[in-house]
């Protein structure tokens, strides 16, 4: 398998508290991985650590063969990683179009697959709202905008935190469809969400975090057949 992201023995700290305990995880090119676990188990911290936003980290993180553990967030972003943060990170004072065009950048191999036109094709709703300010969008529109903005950087790997949290079921369905499109483009994804049933239908692999460590790493079907793990670590 063509490894894109390789993390081994990753520890992360917020001050004195240790959040991640020796996390090992690998993601192949084009692979879609679900990251699940109860609240406070380190999912967001792991994504943030990958993006270079947790200053105090130990262990090894390599992305496309480069060591990125000590790199600045902007360097990591330019290497081909994109983060869709929890709670939608739009720029409220910019319009929808400005939010998208500002992020436009060729990918690590120079490709420009994702353009403004393609994002508007993927999310027609954003096209209708293109001149609206970021602060005038609904939650679903903001999530589309954040995903669209991440795609505009033509990334190799997208990290999506709480993909459908707080979204109406119909909007959530659009987001799941979008994840399918992203996968079809050969972009690798790590997606965090509470809706394990929906995730299990689309992802290649599931990683279960508990207390900052990996409890399970395998195919969705293998986890579904272990109800005791699901019961204990997800409460489903």
């Amino acid at each position: 398998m063509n490894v894109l992201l390789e993390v081994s023995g990753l520890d992360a700290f917020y001050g004195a508290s240790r959040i991640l305990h020796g996390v090992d995880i690998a993601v192949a090119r084009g692979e879609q991985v679900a990251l699940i676990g109860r609240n406070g188990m380190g999912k967001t911290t792991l994504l943030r650590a990958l993006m270079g936003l947790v200053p105090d980290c130990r262990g090894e993180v390599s992305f496309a063969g480069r060591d990125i553990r000590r790199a600045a967030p902007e360097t990591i972003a330019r290497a081909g990683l994109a983060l869709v943060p929890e709670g939608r990170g739009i720029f409220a004072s910019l319009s929808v179009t400005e939010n998208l065009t500002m992020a436009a950048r060729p990918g690590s191999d120079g490709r420009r697959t994702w353009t403004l036109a393609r994002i508007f094709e993927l999310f027609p709703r954003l096209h209708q709202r293109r001149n609206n300010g970021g602060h005038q969008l609904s939650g679903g529109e903001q999530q589309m905008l954040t995903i669209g903005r991440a795609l505009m950087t033509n990334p190799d790997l997208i990290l999506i935190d709480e993909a459908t949290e707080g979204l109406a079921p119909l909007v959530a369905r659009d987001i799941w469809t979008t994840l399918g499109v992203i996968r079809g483009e050969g972009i690798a994804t790590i997606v965090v969400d509470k809706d394990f049933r929906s995730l299990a239908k689309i992802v290649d692999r599931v990683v279960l975090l508990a207390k900052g460590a990996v409890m399970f790493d395998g195919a969705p079907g293998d986890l579904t057949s272990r109800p005791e793990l699901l019961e204990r670590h997800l409460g489903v």
Partner: protein
Amino acid sequence: MMPRWLVPLVLLAIAAALPFGVSTYYVQFIGKAFIMGMLAMALNLAVGHGGMVSICHAAFFGLAGYVLALMSPGYDPASLVLTLPVAAAASGFVALVIGALALRTRGAYFIMVTLAFGEMMFFLFHDTDIAGGSDGTYVNAKPEIAIAGHRLLDLASPLAFYYVVLALLIATIVLLTVLLRSPFGHALAAARDNERRARSLGFPVYRIRLTAFAISGAIAGVAGYFATAQFGFVAPEMLGWHLSATVLVMVLIGGLRSVTGPLVGALVLIGLEEVLKASTDYWKLAEGLIVILIVLSMPNGVRQLWPLIFGATGDAATRPARVPAEANHV
């Protein structure tokens, strides 16, 4: 109600016709207000658009004045073409150096560090013998543009001075508008809205802010050059924090989210001072109360009145203008 695009043209026509309708005193007065407006717009590139609350822009303003004073040859006029770029470059360079250090801090610390650097510049000219020390110095002859002894432009003429300042004011507005609508401007706004988010998108926030800060300092320098040329005098007070704070008030009165808001703020504040000085000895007190009233009733600046006056559906005026705050979530 006139169409929105007509408003700037009408204002420009009024500004251009003004010298033929009022006395020389008011031509100079408006010129001074335009210069302060230029300084306020420069400061707002850092404060409103970049989220960098700087209390040292008077230092960039005053430094350019000192450069003109030091480059002026005794009782002969200096060459505008030579001294203006040097003065602006000096201010831009000092802004680059101060910014490079100050931008390593955030929030209240950034304010304190810029204040400290501004005061260092003040004392550099106040406590040494450079250009008259605490007394300041005169620029005896105003700069001119001359080719082979033929004067093409002489700033000693109040009318010529007014039009040069008006032209530079328009140039500043155009430059800032183009800059803020460019990808660079969007990245600057994004970094202000949320620094970590902008960095996770791959923007080198430090470099972007530093560039904006240096440009802002250079424009402040152009304003300072003409302030010095207008009255032919430069003193350390031009570099002090008091002026920096006054300009910040102009920015707040005018509104943080637009290019021309601070210009309006400067005109309002300077006009207000002029009226109050003529009517009461306690003009500072009255001025303070009025500023408080304006800020309380129009938190987005006097530009909030635009839709009421011109009937236009403003975009910049209605966008939320929060005081730049450091957001810690991604």
